[in-house]
C-alpha cells in the first residue's frame, strides 16, 4: 500500500538521482545539503519578515526596514562618506589590517608561550600567575586605557592582541596536555630526546587545538576592534563608521555597518573553522 505522500518523496528522490547530483555519487549528502539550504533560506526569510514587521510596527528611524538598510549597505561601498572621505572598502581594510596585526602579534606570542606552559611545569609555574591575573579581564575593558596609553594607531591593535591572545594560549596549553601519554611514552621508548618529543610529537598534535584557538580568538578579535574603533581610531574602520553615523543620526547607515561586521565576522570564523576542520581531519582527529 502506498503511504500518503510517499509518491512525492519518490519524485524528490528521483531529482537527486539525476545529473548533476549523482555526479559525485553521494545522493544522501546532496539531499541533506538541499534540506539545509531550504531551511536556511526559510530562516533568513522569516528573519527579514520579522524585521520588516517590527520596523513597520515601531515606525521609527531607529529601526529602518530591511530595504532601506540594503540600499544604505550598497551606498556605503559606492559613495565616499562626506565626513571621512572613505567608502566601506576603506573601512573594511582599516579594520582588517588592525585585526590581522593584532592576530599576528597574538599568534607569535601565545603559541610559543602556550607550548612552553603546556610542556614545562617550570614555565607554567612562572607564567601562570601573571596570565591568570590578566585572563579574566574582558578585552574591551582595556579599550579606553590602551587607546590613551598607546595611541589611536597602536591601541586598537593591542586590544585585538589581548582578545586573541588568551583563547589561543588556553587552547595551546590544553592541546599540549591532551596528548595521549602512550604517544609520548612510545616516542621515548624509541629513543626520542626531549627536543624530538617536542618537535615530532607535541607540536604537530597541538596544531588542531591552535586552529580552534585561532577560530575563537578571531571572533573575539572582531568584537575588540569594533569596540576600540568606537572610542578612537585613525585610518577609518567599520566601528568608527558606525559610531560617526550614530552620532549624526543616520541609523540606516549604522545598520549597514552592523551588517558589514556580521558578514566579516561570519566569513572570518567560517574560514578559520574550515581550516580547523581540514587540519583536524588531516591530523586524524575527525
Amino acid at each position: 500500500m502506498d503511504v500518503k505522500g510517499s509518491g512525492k518523496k519518490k519524485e524528490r528522490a528521483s531529482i537527486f538521482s539525476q545529473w548533476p547530483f549523482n555526479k559525485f555519487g553521494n545522493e544522501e549528502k546532496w539531499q541533506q545539503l538541499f534540506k539545509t539550504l531550504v531551511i536556511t533560506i526559510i530562516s533568513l526569510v522569516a528573519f527579514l519578515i520579522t524585521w520588516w514587521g517590527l520596523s513597520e510596527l515601531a515606525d521609527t528611524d531607529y529601526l529602518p526596514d530591511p530595504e532601506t538598510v540594503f540600499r544604505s549597505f550598497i551606498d556605503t561601498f559606492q559613495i565616499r562618506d562626506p565626513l571621512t572621505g572613505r567608502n566601506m572598502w576603506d573601512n573594511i581594510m582599516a579594520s582588517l589590517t588592525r585585526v590581522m596585526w593584532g592576530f599576528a602579534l597574538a599568534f607569535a606570542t601565545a603559541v610559543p608561550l602556550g607550548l612552553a606552559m603546556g610542556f614545562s611545569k617550570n614555565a607554567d609555574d612562572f607564567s601562570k600567575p601573571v596570565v591568570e591575573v590578566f585572563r579574566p579581564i574582558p578585552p574591551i575593558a582595556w579599550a579606553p586605557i590602551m587607546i590613551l596609553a598607546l595611541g589611536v594607531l597602536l591601541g586598537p591593535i593591542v586590544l585585538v592582541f589581548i582578545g586573541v591572545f588568551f583563547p589561543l594560549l588556553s587552547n595551546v596549553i590544553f592541546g599540549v596536555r591532551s596528548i595521549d601519554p602512550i604517544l609520548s611514552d612510545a616516542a621515548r621508548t624509541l629513543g626520542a630526546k626531549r627536543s624530538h618529543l617536542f618537535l615530532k610529537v607535541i607540536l604537530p598534535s597541538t596544531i588542531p587545538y591552535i586552529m580552534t584557538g585561532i577560530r575563537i580568538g578571531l571572533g573575539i578579535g572582531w568584537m575588540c576592534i569594533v569596540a576600540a574603533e568606537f572610542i578612537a581610531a585613525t585610518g577609518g574602520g567599520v566601528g568608527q563608521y558606525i559610531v560617526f553615523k550614530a552620532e549624526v543620526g543616520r541609523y540606516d547607515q549604522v545598520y549597514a555597518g552592523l551588517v558589514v561586521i556580521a558578514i566579516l565576522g561570519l566569513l572570518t570564523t567560517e574560514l578559520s573553522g574550515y581550516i580547523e576542520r581540514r587540519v583536524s581531519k588531516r591530523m586524524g582527529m575527525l
Partner: protein
Amino acid sequence: MDKKIAIIAVAVVAIVVLGIVAITFMQGDSDEKVVYWVAVAPIDQKAALAAGTIDGAITWEPYASDALLSGSAAIYKWSEDIWEDHPCCVVAVDQDYLAENEQIVLRVLKVHQVATDWIYETIQDTSSDNYTKLLDLGAEFSQRNTSVVASSLEHMILTYEITSEFEDWMELITEKYIDLDLIENATLATRGYDSVEDFVDQYVNSSYLAMAEDIEPSEEILNEDDPVRIGYLVGDLHQFARVIAADDTLWGGNKSLFEIYGVATVTSEGGPYANGGAEMDAFATGLVDIGYLGSPPAILKHLNAGVNTLIVGQVNTVGSAIFVDPEITSLEDFYGKTIATPGPSSIQHLMFLDYFTSNGFTVKAK
C-alpha cells in the same frame, strides 16, 4: 606535516604580513596644507595631547581651561575669535511632553532664566561669597578645580534668549550640514519642512521663554509624583545654570530653585550624557523630558532620526577653544598635525572644519 604544506603556509603568512605592512605604511599623505582630525571625547583630549596622540584639540569648557591651566597646552584660539557669538548649547524639550505639561516646561524655563541671570550678576563681583560658592559648585560638577571654573566663566557667555541672530546661525548650521551631506536635502521635506528657513521657524520657538517671564515662585509643587526628567552633559560648564538651579544651599529654605518655582526634577535615566547625540537618543527612547545639549546634535538628530524635540531656549554662546601643543603658534605650524574634535555632530567640529578650510587647509579624517 608535509614540507610542501609548511612552505605554502610560510609563504601565505609572509604575503599577509607584507600586505599589512604595505597597507599600513602606504597610507601617508603629503603634509602640505593638510590638517587631520580625529574624534576624541573632550574629557580624554588633554591626556591624548600629553601622550602625543594628538597635536591639539577643539573643545568646550571646562576642558579648554583645564588644558591651559595644566601648563601642558596653550590656547591657539578661543572660539569667539573664530566665530563671534557662535551658538552652542540650547534647552530642548520633548514635544509630546510639552503638549501635556506646558506649565512645567514654562517653570523650568523660568528657573533657567533666573539661574542664568544670577550667574551673570555673581561673576561681576569676584570677591563675593556667592562667587566663591559658584566656583565650588562648578568645581564639584565638572570635577575640575576652582581656577579652571573661574577661567571657564571668563570665556563663555551664558544666556537664554532666542535672538534673531541665533535663528540665523541655526539656518547657517543646517545649510552647512546639507552642504556637507550630513543631512540629505530631501530630509527636510520628509520631516514636513518646506525649506531651511521654515525648519528653523518651526524648530526654534521663542514663545515659551516669553511666557515663562510671568511665572512666579510657587509653594505648591506641580509635579510632586512625576518629576520632570532633565538631561544634561557630563561636566559641561556651558550648562552651569542647571547646576546652580539644582543646588539647595543657594536659594534659602533648603530648597532648589526648581522647588522654589514649584517643579520637581530628576536627572534623566542614563544621564548625564557624554555628548548631545547620546542625549538626543535618550530623548528618542523617552528618557528625557527637557534637556541641555548642543544645538548641532539637536538639529542633526531631529532631522535625520526624527527625534521629536523643540528648541525653546539658548544656554550659552561661545565658550570653546582650540588648545594645542605649546610649540604650535601659527597657522603654518598646523601643517600635517592632528587635531581632536569632540565628534562630527558638535559645533566645535563644524568650527574646526570652517576655520581650517577658510584658511586654505585641506581637512582630512585621520
